[in-house]
């Protein structure tokens, strides 16, 4: 089965359309969404409706911190930019859309795969996996051979051998990586809706469960249009500019 792993969509309709189109063209048979459907972007309603359509067709989806925040509404403890975005997003979503986000599970286990937004050791703590140490902590917390997570917007791959040696790797788009069966892997596909590695093209990954091959993808999309919509919605300028810079 060919899985498409899409994460951190962040209400970016242009990016999500491009990624889903690319994945369908590549023959994806099942979609897995790793959270953060809303927040930052100008089209939260469209992205949640799209998610619902995919869920109806058998997709897997877990909840992200931005989804939890959108349901909850703005909190006084949030920093100003975040408070503004959360309040705006909350106002854009109807009760049904908010209920859908609220119902999403924090993690899903399917065979030897674990899907979770932030990490396996404390899914609601939203701790980032940015180092080998974090990755080991997450891989030790699960017996799943493969962990797929988002939260971190840069594409990354970690692996842990039977002897406890951990390695990390910055993937090259379009090159299939055979994930050997004798070690644990932690896969971060990178953000579809708000890439931050200096390249504005949308990220996602595909995984072939038969061949065991993982491929990271970069999909160019009309990020200038998406950025203009963020600006037009009156959201903070820094968020609009981020889509142009990819930072």
């Amino acid at each position: 089965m060919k899985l498409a792993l899409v994460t951190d969509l962040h209400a970016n309709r242009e990016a999500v359309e491009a990624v889903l189109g690319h994945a369908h063209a590549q023959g994806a048979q099942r979609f897995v969404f790793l959270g953060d459907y809303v927040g930052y972007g100008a089209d939260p309603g469209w992205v949640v409706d799209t998610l619902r359509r995919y869920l109806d067709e058998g997709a897997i989806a877990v909840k992200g911190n931005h989804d939890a925040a959108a349901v909850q509404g703005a909190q006084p403890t949030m920093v100003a930019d975040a408070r503004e975005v959360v309040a705006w997003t909350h106002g854009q979503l109807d009760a049904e859309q908010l209920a859908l986000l609220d119902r999403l599970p924090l993690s899903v286990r399917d065979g030897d795969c674990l899907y979770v937004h932030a990490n396996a050791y404390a899914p609601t703590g939203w701790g980032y996996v940015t180092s080998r140490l974090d990755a080991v902590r997450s891989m030790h917390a699960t017996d799943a051979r493969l962990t797929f997570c988002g939260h971190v917007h840069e594409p990354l791959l970690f692996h842990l051998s039977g002897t406890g040696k951990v390695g990390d790797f910055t993937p090259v788009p379009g090159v299939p990586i055979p994930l050997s069966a004798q070690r644990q892997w932690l896969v971060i596909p990178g953000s579809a809706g708000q890439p931050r590695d200096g390249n504005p093209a949308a990220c996602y990954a595909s995984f072939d469960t038969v061949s065991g091959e993982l491929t990271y993808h970069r999909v160019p999309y009309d990020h200038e249009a998406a950025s203009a919509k963020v600006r037009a919605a009156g959201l903070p300028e820094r968020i609009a500019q981020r889509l142009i810079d990819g930072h």
Partner: protein
Amino acid sequence: MDTEPGPAPRATRLAAGQVIDGFRLDEHLHQGGMANLWAVTRVGGDDPLPLIMKVPRIKGGEDPTSIVGFEVEQMILPSLSGPHVPKFVAKGDFTGQPFIVMERLAGDSLRKRFDDAPLPADEVARLGARIATALHDLHRQHVVHLDVKPSNIMFRADGTAVLVDFGLSRHDFLPDLLDEEFELPMGTGPYMSPEQVQFIRNDPRSDLFALGVLLYHLLSGERPFGAPTSVRGLRQRLYQDPLPPLAWRPDCPPWLQELVLRCLEVQPDLRHQSAAQLAFDLQNPAQVVLTERATRRTRSGRVQTLRRWFKALGAEPAERGNAAHQAARSPILLAAVDVANADPGLLEEVRDTVQRLLHTEPGARLACLTVMKVNRIGMDELVDKDGGSRHVGLLVQLKHWARPLLQELEATRPEQAGRVTFHVLEAPDAAGAIVDYARKNQVDHVVMGARSSGGLRRYLGSVSAEVVAQSDCTVTVVRSLLRPSP
């Protein structure tokens, strides 16, 4: 996906006749330190190639070297293609019986030939050129082998070298599973490059060092750095240079010693910058620029060795880019120039184009070539005499044409020497000769002029069009903007 990963099963004793994942074991061929090799056939299949199955030897179930090495090979071999690697067929992972099935190569590895060393110099050069050609193909596929040694080199019936065993290799675009695994340098003691001793695993020029060790051994019957087993012993090659091959055999051609000792340079920057450039030199002995290396008869004195030892103490090897990048940065350009017949304006434009390319590619080498047309059938003595002087005449013209390029490159300076070479080919068909030459020498880019006169082109046909159509590499055809007056 559906099965939970269980404990890694022990490799059970295999026997002929047993079937593993649709492959029947026919004959146990070899037991190595890391793996067993079996001749196999696909049950009910008719594979066009004879097949071999490699099964890792797992000693006591806890042997990270053989397990990780096998994982690495399972990862890298399927990504490789072409005549210089065995064709990958199938693999099985450690949840069942781990194995790799690949094309079975006939004959023995180069290991057997080592019993006959020292070998004649021309045979050493021929073997070296073939192996370097294979390495260049591997590097272009983004892989550094990192375990080049006689037992990992096989040959096809036509002499093509084939590299086997990718258990220590590194792929530019795949995770390096070995990077973090071990606290000791990885490789085979006698062949390991100085930078490998210092844990650098991404420099394709490490393979040229190992090839240098191999050629040295074939040439002299001796190992340049012995067979050390300790890290201290391995580090010796960082400061102690080997006894020159001439010390072992006075008949060693100076050009071959020059090439072998250049492979064995401690600094990768002092070696050939790509395997193709080394293959080129091994096939064009007359063009090898000889330095002090060529005539050396003893190793450095104690003072110099001591100085190097101090330098090696604190030396941190520079991080390198990646295999394919290094190969691409060191291209071979071929300027095919019809010095005898082409329009002077066109010759100048071809030279200008070459000059621009050399500017943008500081690591490039330039081969200047012209074809001397000869009859299709063997020449009689009279023509031969005449041919000899024509040959020299063309070489003089070719060098004269390239003079401004040499000045620009300051090719007279020793570090630039050897960047430009000259070749007069004798052939009945210019296009065929250029294409063959480019292929044999792994040229990356051919630059040549186009016949400007429409009438002549119609009458004689276009050499450049034929080269463009038949070449494997990039071809730039330069056209003169100055129209000949009617």
